[in-house]
């Protein structure tokens, strides 16, 4: 998560709010792309953290993020292959990636405890934003039952990460 809270909320409203009400629901190939992109963003964030942090808890959290999101994305890739679906880039994926790149650049300027706090705070906000998008838009919009089920597992993983990030954030204070 690479989005500031405000940007995260903007991304969520893009996914679930008025914008979505006006346009058609995202299609399965778009949903697959959004979910995969959201995972890649968190992996990139974790890898940046692993290169910068010297805090044991932050390092361990970042290791968990890489491991879990790589596992989820592998499942997603296996599923799209099985379903013969090609993930389709879309405005939501593009916005997520753009915000993520900006956040990476912003965090890159920080170091030490300031970086740790900013990274973990962002992880809390990012997972919240993605959870909300999954719950309100992506899961209800998914047509394929297996995709829906994978998204539901993804939601539980993300909710777990959000709570884990909150624990780490509390420990950093």
């Amino acid at each position, binding site marked *: 998560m690479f989005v500031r809270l405000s940007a995260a909320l903007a991304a969520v409203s893009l996914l679930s709010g008025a914008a979505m009400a006006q346009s058609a629901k995202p299609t399965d190939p778009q949903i697959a792309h959004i979910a995969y992109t959201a995972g890649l963003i968190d992996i990139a964030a974790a890898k940046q953290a692993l290169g910068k942090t010297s805090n044991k808890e932050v390092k361990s959290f970042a290791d*968990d993020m890489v491991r879990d999101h790589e596992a989820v994305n592998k499942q997603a890739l296996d599923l799209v292959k099985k379903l013969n679906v090609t993930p389709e880039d879309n405005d939501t994926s593009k916005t997520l990636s753009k915000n993520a790149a900006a956040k990476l650049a912003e965090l890159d300027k920080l170091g030490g405890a300031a970086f740790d706090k900013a990274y973990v705070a962002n992880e809390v906000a990012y997972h919240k934003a993605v959870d909300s998008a999954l719950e309100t838009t992506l899961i209800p919009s998914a047509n394929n039952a297996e995709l829906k089920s994978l998204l539901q597992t993804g939601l*539980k*993983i993300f*909710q777990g990460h959000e709570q884990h990030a909150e624990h780490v954030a509390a420990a950093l204070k």
Partner: protein
Amino acid sequence: MPRWIFPTVAALVTATLALGISVSAVAATIQISMENLEVAPAEVTAKVGDTIEWVNKDVFAHTATARNGDWDVMLPPKKNGTLVLKKAGTVDYYCRFHPNMKATLTVTP
């Protein structure tokens, strides 16, 4: 979905005391599954001496971590982990990686 409690007789422990009295105790192994981030069953009652075997069916690593700090069992993806119950009491436990995974183990003497 199968129910994931299969108390099985895992071991028949026979201890022969110096007096020549044979004492045997039957210990059970109780399986608890972790699948799609759900612990099932979430509430289990067992006895001191029983073995709990967590079966992690997910591709994600989990832990079974006692809130009171008594134990912390690592459960790599698609692997099992066991714990022999040593003391009585009710212990809440959770997964350190996904703290939304919560369950309770009640151990009777």
